Structures are given as C-alpha cells and as structure tokens.
C-alpha cells in the first residue's frame, strides 16, 4: 500500500500554500509601505484600508499580515515534495496542527472584521478562503494516510 497521499492532493496543497504566500506577501508589503493617511476611505463595507490599519491589524505588536506570511511560508515548506515522501507520520501531523492553528486565527480575524471593524478586506478574505481550503485538503490527506490501525488490519491482527 502506498504511504503517500494521491499526487493530486499534494499538488493542490502546495498550490494553495504558494497562493497564500503570494497574497500574504502582498499584504505584508502594503502594511509596511502604505502611507498612513488621516482619512476614512468612503467605500462602505468592502474596505481593505480600514481593516489593515485597524487596531486588529497587529497581534502583540506583530502585524497580522506578517504572521500570515510566516504561516504560509512554513506551510509551503511542509508541503514540499521531500516532506510528502517521508515515512514518518510527523510531517503530516505538523501540517494538520499548523493549519488548524491557522484556521482558529482565521475565525478570530473574521469575527474582528464582522463585529469590531465593520469592514471586509477582500485580500484578507482570499487568505482566509485559502486557509480553509488548505485545511480541507490536509484533513483528507491525513484521513487517507496509513495508520497503525491499517497496519494491524493489513497484518491480519
């Protein structure tokens, strides 16, 4: 029995990570280079500037965009081909644990956008959607991965 998940899922996970990395890189660049204007963007509920300049754009002094960039950089590393080919269960567990933490952070950020900032940033929403999709792909990958139970069944014990 193959110990690796289907190649399609590997490619999907890596693609989602790279897409998340690119969008997070853009948001991080914007965070550090955008001039702070003393103005209210008059564009209603879809308002990236209001979100990315709000009190919720930093956690413990660290820009959320930078946290997103680090998250996707780490996930990209964990989803590279050499780590899919490992026989150890730990890369898979690390992937699932990391994406679960990322997902919990997405819940917090969506809550902040909806109930505290009262605005939605479309770029941030893209990152949230990519995290959710990555969680779904990695959950399926983990479900398909062979376990000790499989080995016992295979050995007829």
């Amino acid at each position, binding site marked *: 029995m193959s110990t690796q998940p289907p190649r399609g899922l590997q490619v999907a996970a890596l693609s989602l990570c790279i897409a998340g990395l690119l969008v997070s890189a853009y948001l991080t660049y914007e965070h550090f280079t955008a001039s702070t*204007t*003393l103005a209210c963007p008059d*564009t209603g509920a879809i308002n990236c500037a209001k979100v990315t300049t709000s009190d919720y754009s930093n956690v413990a002094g660290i820009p959320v965009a930078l946290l997103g960039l680090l998250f996707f950089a780490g996930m990209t590393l964990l989803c590279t081909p050499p780590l899919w080919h490992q026989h150890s269960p730990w890369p898979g567990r690390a992937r699932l644990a990391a994406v679960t933490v990322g997902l919990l952070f997405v819940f917090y950020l969506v809550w902040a956008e909806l109930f505290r900032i*009262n605005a939605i940033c479309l770029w941030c929403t893209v990152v949230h959607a990519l995290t959710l999709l990555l969680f779904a792909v990695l*959950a399926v990958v983990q479900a398909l991965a062979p376990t000790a139970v499989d080995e016992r069944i295979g050995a007829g014990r």
Partner: protein
Amino acid sequence: MSSRSDRKVSAREHAAQLRAAQLRAERRRRLLSAGAAVAVVVAVIAGLIIAKLAGAGASTPSAASGLASSQVMTAVTSVPAATLNKIGVGSAQGGPQHITAPALTQAGKPKVLYVGAEYCPFCAAERWPVVVALSRFGTFTNLGVTSSAGNDVYPNTPTLSFHGATYSSQYLSFTGVETTSNKLVNGNYAPLDTLTPADQQTFTTYDQPPYVTGQGGSIPFIDIAGKYVSSGATYSPQLLQGLTQAQVAAQLKNPSSQIAQAVDGSANLFTAALCQATGNKPGNVCTAPGVTAAAAQLAKG
C-alpha cells in the same frame, strides 16, 4: 490433496478480502471524520456571517448629538486673532493643495464644499479647523455637536456637525454634507445628507489622485472654489480623545495648547486657501500674520 490446497487458497483469499473490506471501512470512517471537521469549520464561518446579518454585532453606542451650546459656538467662532497669529501653521500637517480646475461657485460666490460623515474620526478632527476658518468669513447657525462612531478607530472623537447647519457670508458660500450618521442600522451607518449631482461630480472628480494624495474617495474632502482641495485630516484625532466638545472648544484660545496648535494651525491653512478664493477679502483676515505664514506654507506645497 488438491482439494485441501484449494481450500487453503480460498481461505487466504477470503481473509485478504476481509482485510481489504476492513481497510476500506476504516478509511471511509476517517474520510467521514475529515468531512465532518470541514463541515464544522464552514458552519462556524457561516454562523458568524449569519449572526452579523442578523444584527448581533451591535456597536458601542455613540455619544448623543444635538445643537452646539452657545459656549461652544462662541469659543469656536471667536478664536482670538492674537492666538491664531501666534500659532501660524502650528502642528498642522498637509493642508489644502492647489489644483487647476474650473471655478466652483454658488450664488455668484466662491463655493466651499465639505464632504464627510459623522462616524468618521478624521472628519471629526477636521471639522474644528474648518469651522474656525470659515467663521472668519461668515456666520454659522444650527451647528451640531456629535462624536465619531464608538466602534471605529479613535472612538467617540468629539466634534461638530454640519448636518442641518447653515452658513451665511458675503464672501463665500458653503455646503457641508454629512453622508451618514455615527449610528449603525443593520450593519451600516444610517444615511444623513445626500450630495447633489453637481457636488457628487465634484467629489468624484477631485477626490482622486493626482488632485489629492493617498487613496481616492477618502473623507473628509474639501473643495475650496475649485482652487484648493483637501482630503483627510490635518492632525490626528488622538489629540481629542476623552474630551468633550466644550473642553476642545475651550482649548482653542490657548496658544500653548497642543489642541490649539493643531486646530488653529490647520484653520490658518484653510483661511489662507479661502483668501485665495475671495481675492484676499476681508483684508484684516487675509493679511493677518498667522494667515500669511500659512499662505507661505501652502505656496511651498
């Protein structure tokens, strides 16, 4: 002998089929668990959105609005000339930018168009210098007092409101538009004033780069007779945090106050731009040292 061997093979095949079925069942169980986890995630996100749409995110109530007291009106519309002259540009940043555009007029007079919203903390900050400056050219009646939204940055910044106010001047005409209030209704700030098609055209055209710096469509936006435009505030609303309208107004006559340095400095910048629109009338205002200092600053760009 052959029959015994067949039975052994058959038993092995049966055991293998059983193991394969068990493996498939185990895998199916784990896939269902993964599907359930994804469904929970989607349900949480959907729940947040539904709760928002249902109005569960009631905002922090904003302070009550009303007409400005005579004490506030007097303090804002009668800042001593000596204070304004001493401050000059003060700590104000930016200010109106010169543009080349058709003249903006109303009733034969240069027109000043202000577009803002009561929820907006930067509009809250900017109304103070705008009122101080315009009061040197004319008279406001029915100016309101309000505060920015309680759930935005710089919450509850104390301010004035142009909603329902009128302005009369022999030099200028003024239109102050507050597009929304500071109160959320079904997740959006309640609408207040509506721009006329002409004012909307001015706002749409000139509240954009290259006429203004930063993001186009931002508020507060001020067009001074088609000669100058300003987008955004000239100082941080942080300066006004925790104060009442009366406390802010009372600071404006004190040249050593940080608030006066920002508000009066900005008012001098707006006054200098207004003087460009009125042909330097009235003379006593437009030749005041604080205004000429601000005019020099505007000329530098």
